[in-house]
C-alpha cells in the first residue's frame, strides 16, 4: 500500500485527475445547498439569457438556470456511472471467477457468452432494449451495466487462471476448502487490483454512454436534468444559445478525462506490467 501510494504520488496527472474526481463528487453531493436557483424553476422573462452575473452559465429555452441544472446533472451522471459499473462489476466478477477457476466447459461457455455480447454494437443493443422498456434512471443504469460487464469478466478470468496455480490455492484445496470459499476468500482479494482499475476506467465510459443516450432523447427523461439532456435541448437552440451546448459538453469532457487519468494512474502504480493487459481489454469505447 505504501509502495502504491509512493508510485501514485509521483504521477502528477493522475493526482490532478484524482483531485478533480473528488471535487466533482463533492459538488454533486452538495448540489442542493450550492445552487442559487431551483433547477426546474421556469422564468418566462429570462428565456435564453446569455451568461451574466445572476446566471453565470446563462439560461435555457424555459428560462431555467443552466448552472443549477448542470450541478443537478452531475448527480445523475455520477450516479449512473457508479451504479452501472457496480452492476457490471458484480456480473463480471461472478462469471469471470467461475470461468477462470473451474476452466473446462464452464470457461468455454462464459467466454463464448462474452464473445457473443461483444458482437452486438453496444448502442444498437441498448436502443433495442430501451425501446421495450420505460426509460427511467434505473432502467438506464441496469441496461448500461448489463451491456458492460464483459471486460471485467475477461480480466477476472485472466487473473484467476494464473492465481489458481499458486501454492496458497493448492494448499487450501488440499485441506478441503470449498470452491466458493477459495474463490471468495483467497483468490478474489488478490485479483481485486485490476478489477478496481477496470471499474475506475468503466465509470467514464458509462457516463459517456448515458449522456449519449440522453442526448438522443432516449436516456434519462426530462424534466430531470442531465448533461446529455441539456445538450439535447441546446441542439435546438444552437444558433442562439451557444452556452447551452458548450458547458455541459465541457463538463462531460473534464469528468471523463479525470476518471481516465485517475484510472491509468492507479493501474501504473499498482503494477506497470498491467499497462498492456488492462488497457487492451478496457479501453474500448461503446
Amino acid at each position, binding site marked *: 500500500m505504501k509502495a502504491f501510494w509512493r508510485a501514485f504520488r509521483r504521477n502528477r496527472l493522475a493526482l490532478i485527475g484524482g483531485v478533480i474526481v473528488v471535487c466533482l463528487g463533492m459538488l454533486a453531493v452538495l448540489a442542493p445547498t450550492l445552487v442559487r436557483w431551483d433547477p426546474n424553476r421556469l422564468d418566462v422573462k429570462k428565456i435564453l439569457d446569455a451568461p451574466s452575473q445572476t446566471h453565470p452559465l446563462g439560461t435555457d429555452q424555459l428560462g431555467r438556470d443552466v448552472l443549477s441544472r448542470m450541478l443537478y446533472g452531475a448527480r445523475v451522471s455520477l450516479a449512473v456511472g457508479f451504479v452501472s459499473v457496480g452492476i457490471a462489476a458484480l456480473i463480471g466478477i461472478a462469471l469471470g471467477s467461475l470461468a477462470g477457476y473451474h476452466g473446462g466447459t464452464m470457461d468455454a461457455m462464459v467466454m463464448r457468452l462474452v464473445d457473443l455480447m461483444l458482437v452486438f454494437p453496444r448502442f444498437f443493443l441498448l436502443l433495442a432494449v430501451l425501446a421495450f422498456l420505460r426509460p427511467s434512471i434505473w432502467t438506464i443504469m441496469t441496461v448500461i451495466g448489463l451491456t458492460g460487464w464483459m471486460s471485467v469478466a475477461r480480466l477476472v478470468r485472466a487473473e484467476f487462471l494464473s492465481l489458481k496455480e499458486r501454492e496458497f490455492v493448492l494448499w487450501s484445496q488440499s485441506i478441503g476448502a470449498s470452491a466458493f470459499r477459495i474463490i471468495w476468500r483467497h483468490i478474489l482479494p488478490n485479483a481485486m487490483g485490476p478489477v478496481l482499475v477496470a471499474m475506475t476506467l468503466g465509470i467514464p465510459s458509462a457516463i459517456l454512454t448515458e449522456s449519449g443516450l440522453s442526448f438522443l432523447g432516449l436516456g434519462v427523461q426530462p424534466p430531470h436534468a442531465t448533461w446529455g439532456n441539456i445538450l439535447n435541448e441546446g441542439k435546438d437552440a444552437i444558433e442562439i444559445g451557444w452556452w447551452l451546448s458548450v458547458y455541459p459538453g465541457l463538463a462531460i469532457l473534464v469528468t471523463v478525462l479525470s476518471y481516465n487519468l485517475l484510472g491509468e494512474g492507479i493501474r501504473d502504480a499498482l503494477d506497470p506490467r498491467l499497462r*498492456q493487459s488492462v488497457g487492451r481489454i478496457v479501453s474500448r469505447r461503446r
Partner: protein
Amino acid sequence: MFGYALRRLVLAIPLLIGITLISFVVIHLAPGEPTEFGTGDTPIQSDKEVRERLIQMYGLDKPLHVQYWTWLTRLIQLDFGRSFSPDARPVLQKIGERLPVTLLLNIIEMMIIVALAIPIGVLSATRQYSTFDKVTTVFVFVGFATPDFWLALMLMILFGVQLEWLPISGLRLPTWEYLSFWRQQWDFVSHLILPILVATFGGLAGFSRYMRQSMLEVIRQDYIQSARAKGLPERAVIAKHALRNALLPIVTVLGLSLPGLIGGSVIVESIFAIPGMGQLMVQAVFERDYPVIMGNLVIVAVLTLVANLIADLTYSLVDPRIRVAARRGRR
C-alpha cells in the same frame, strides 16, 4: 490455411445462434410495459394496438419453443416482417436502403483512421518522450474523453453556423438535381466532411495509442537489436523489421473496434441527419417500430461477426504463427 479458415467458420456458428437467442430475449421484454416517449414527432400508436401486433407477429401467445422456432425460420429466410410505420414496407427493404450509406461512412472512417494512426503511432514510439509524443499523448486522452455528439455540435456551431463553410445536415442539398456534375460531387463530399471528422476523432485516438504501444513492444525485441547490430540504417530497421511486426496486432484490434465504429454511427447519423442504419434505428425506437428495431439489431450483429471473421482470417494470413499455434491445439 484452409483448415484454419474452416475452424473459424465452424466456431462462428454458435455465435450466430447466440445472436438469434439474444435478440429473441430482447423481444420478450415486450409484453411488460411498452415505452412511451413523449418526444416522438410521429403519431404514436396506442400501447394496446402495438402489443397486439407484436403478439400476432412473433406469436407471443404460443409456447416458448414454438416462438423461437418461428423466429429462427423467419430469420433464416431473411424475413423480418413489415414495418409498423404507416408505409408498412418490408423491413429488409428499409434496411437495404440504409445499409450502403452506413457501410460507406464506416469504410471511409476506417481508412482515414488507419492511414493517420499508423504514422502517428510509429513516430511517437520511435521518438518516445519527445515533444511530438507528448502532444499526441495529450490528444489521445482528450480524444478518448470527448463526447462525439458534443464535438459534432461544436463543429456545427463553428463551421456550419458561424463560418457557414459546410452544410450541417443530410447528404445532399435540396437543389442537388440542378447542380452541375462537379458541383454535385463537391456537394456530396462537403456533406460528409463534418460527420467523418467527428466519427474518426475518437477512433484515431485509440488506434494511434495501440500503434504506439505495439511499436514500443517490438522495438525492445532482440531481433531489432540484431538488425541494428548488423549495421542496418535505422530507417530500414523501423520500416522493414519493426513496422511489419507491430502492425500484426493492429489487424485484430481493427476487427474488434468495428462494433464501436458502427455503434458510433447511431449518434453521428442522428445529429447530421444522414439516412443510414443508425438514424433508422433511432427513428424506429421513437416510433416503436419493433420489426425494424429487431431487424436492425440482428443485421448489425451479423455484420460485425462477419467483419471479425475477416479480421481473424487476415491476421492468420499475415502471421503464420497463428495458424501453427491453432494446429497444435492451443488457441
